[in-house]
């Protein structure tokens, strides 16, 4: 029996709801960036593309976004793995078994606000440092929020992503029977460090790769946290787009759409590469 046939009608809605806006947005940003439309548009031109592509800020912003995304994720991976292998079953028991879910209830905008209140010049850690006699005034505290190195953004993302990764790695450790594999390796003469480095980590990181790739893409495109506690310059790509888009000077708006086009192409390509790699991996496993 067929509830409805798996023909074109069954995919009309997804194509309409997701494909429609994506196509519309893609065409609009491209046409706007080429001067085809826009309030102050002088007509079709490549000038906005030339301006954006020759502007070092574009490439700095893209590289900065990649750096912040990668640093946040790398820090979270290392810390989450350390927790999973240090605490093991303790993660699933008692108060910690519930508390580990707590950061999952925090939206990015709240994480940004919390980072400012914890790590800012007059934040909680700065106050503790003062009471311990380590600093004499708020300005003595290291600049972590609004830092050019994006430390505040990385800390906020770290706080958001690490619990997810702890839960993910803990589940993978059980699903992939990592402990049994490690025991087998040790029986065959491997040291604890060798079993960790050459057995456990490759198995878990390989299994987690799809999820980690998606996290990386999301972190690179983060908006709320860098807007709230990021430095003015360099800025992450989503904030740069917002600044060019929302300026009172309408002349910069086509540049915003050049940036959106560029960013979308890069991210969609990254997504497709991740998918192809996954499909290749699955075929290899079969």
């Amino acid at each position, binding site marked *: *029996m067929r*509830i*409805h046939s*798996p023909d074109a009608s*069954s*995919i009309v809605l*997804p194509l309409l*709801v*997701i494909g429609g806006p*994506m196509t*519309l*947005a*893609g065409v*609009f940003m491209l046409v706007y960036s080429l001067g085809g439309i826009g309030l102050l548009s002088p007509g079709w031109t490549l000038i906005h593309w030339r301006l954006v592509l020759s502007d070092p800020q574009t490439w700095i912003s893209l590289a900065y976004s990649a750096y912040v995304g990668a640093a946040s994720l790398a820090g979270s991976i290392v810390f989450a793995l350390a*927790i999973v292998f*240090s*605490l093991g079953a*303790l993660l699933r028991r008692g108060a*910690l078994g*519930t*508390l580990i*879910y*707590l*950061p999952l*209830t*925090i*939206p990015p*905008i*709240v994480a940004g*606000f*919390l980072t400012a*209140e*914890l790590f800012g010049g*007059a934040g909680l850690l700065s*106050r503790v440092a003062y009471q311990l006699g380590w600093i004499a005034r708020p300005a003595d505290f290291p600049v972590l929020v609004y830092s050019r190195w994006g430390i505040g953004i990385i800390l906020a993302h770290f706080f958001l992503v690490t*619990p*997810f990764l702890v839960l*993910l790695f803990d*589940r*993978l450790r059980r699903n992939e029977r990592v402990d049994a594999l490690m025991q087998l390796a040790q029986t065959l003469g491997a040291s604890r460090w060798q079993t960790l480095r050459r057995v456990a980590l490759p198995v878990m990181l390989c*299994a987690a790769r*799809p*999820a980690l790739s*998606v996290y990386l*893409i999301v972190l690179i*495109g983060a*908006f*709320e946290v860098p807007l*709230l506690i990021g430095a003015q310059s360099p800025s992450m790509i*989503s904030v740069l*787009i*917002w600044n060019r888009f929302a300026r009172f000077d309408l002349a910069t708006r086509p540049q915003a759409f050049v940036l*959106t086009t560029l*960013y*979308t192409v890069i*991210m*969609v390509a990254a*997504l497709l590469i991740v998918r192809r790699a*996954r499909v290749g991996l*699955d075929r290899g496993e079969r």
Partner: protein
Amino acid sequence: MQRTLAGLLSLSLIVPVALLVVLSLTRYWIFPDIFPAQWQIEQWQRLFQGGSDLVPATMCSIGIATGVALTSTALAFPASRGICRLRRRGALLTLAHLPYAASPVVLGASLLYVFLRLHLADSVAGVMLAQFVFAFAYGIILLSSFWNTDVESLIGVAATLGARPVQVWLRVLVPRALPLLGICLFQTFLISWFDYALVLLVGGGLVDTLTIRLFQYFEAGDARLAATCALLLMAPPLLGLALNQRLLTAGLLFQEIEHDG
């Protein structure tokens, strides 16, 4: 050693949330005091009595998120089946990831012109429509993990016993998928509830939600009201955590999704 580490980790998880509570109850707290010099609960009292400025923003957020969650889950469920029955479903599941790859800022800015032409900009309906794209895409990704050969066999059995298509959906598939539909409903609610970028772009400052308020209070340096907004934003997920931890960990299902794709 393990116990100490677990204790330290627990403390680091509690401190941020405790800080929010303290900030929301603070009247006077200057550097370098570790604890506030004066406390107050006025804005919480006003909130519960319905006289606070935060009440309209809270109601607006609840209304938008509920509408987005209900429509996206209701439509994503049958749509996910349509996709899962295709041979090349992986391509369509990748399509569902595209809005997230493009990011809400990019999509919001690019669709604003269309929303303006349709008179949907600066309106609640426009914000809901924009958020719906993301929530629906997420619903498809999540619910696609429901469809497998067991479910298809069940559909076959129900049909053999004389059930009509509508009966199969309402009496067989919905009850069986109820836990996952609950997760989908909750997660799509949170997608809308946590959203800032689309409300900012499509709402144009006229749609007043808690995320918009939090940003405004933070910029104005009012940590007390910003913390109150933050706690209100955390209330639904905390409730979800109290009910069922699985409601919050649906993101981990990316694993299964990618394997299916």
